């Protein structure tokens, strides 16, 4: 289990190599990476331009909450290991924001845990995005779809 909150870029290949090294009893690793989009809205055609975004966070609480989310994933699935990396500061479109990875003896737990980590992170980890657009800066509102995705993990044991 590991959590990293950092301004710097991360290298998914190097992270994956490190994460998978020596894991002889692991049947699968699931890894998800979130990127910065260059538009806001449902799709690019109807959306508006985003030049960049800045992520603010709550140092200390962020790490605590991410560790709690990770611990919850380990309580729910038979996981070998997990990794969460989240960036903050100014990010350009195409840049990586977040990486979550889960390893397990069997793939289902790794897939499910990865989804869970992202869904809970999006609604519980204290990060806020401000989008820089041609019309000025705008704080991103929390999405109901993210709340719905997170709450489905509360409805009984998966």
């Amino acid at each position: 289990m590991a959590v990293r909150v950092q301004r710097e870029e991360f290298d998914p290949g190097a992270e994956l190599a490190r994460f998978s090294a020596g894991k002889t009893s692991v049947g699968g690793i699931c890894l998800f990476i979130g990127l910065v989009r260059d538009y806001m809205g449902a799709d690019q055609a109807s959306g508006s331009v985003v030049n960049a975004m800045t992520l603010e966070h709550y140092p200390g609480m962020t790490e605590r909450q991410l560790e709690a989310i990770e611990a919850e994933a380990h309580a729910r699935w038979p996981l070998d290991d997990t990794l969460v990396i989240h960036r903050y500061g100014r990010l350009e479109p195409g840049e990586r924001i977040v990486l979550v990875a889960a390893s397990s003896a069997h793939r289902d737990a790794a897939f499910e845990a990865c989804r869970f980590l992202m869904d809970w992170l999006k609604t519980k980890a204290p990060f806020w995005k401000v989008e820089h657009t041609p019309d000025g800066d705008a704080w991103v509102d929390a999405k109901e779809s993210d709340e719905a995705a997170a709450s489905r993990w509360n409805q009984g044991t998966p």
Partner: protein
Amino acid sequence: MKVLYFAWLKAKTGLGEEDVTPPDGVATVGQLVDFLKTRSPGHAAAFEVMSTVRVAVNQDYGGLDTPVKTGDEVAFFPPVTGG
């Protein structure tokens, strides 16, 4: 008591953090908010719509009924949008 503001609450209050000494009788987050609203028009604006404000006491999520006391770290922020 240390009070922190994030995202647009920081913009509205004009403060990232401040040390406050609430009057006697302030024992919950809700009572603290009522006190903070009196500090400036910006504070009043930040706490105008409490349904859009989240709170953490000593880095754990809380609500308006959560107890607060001297020495606590209380943070106010909008719903999170990370990932």
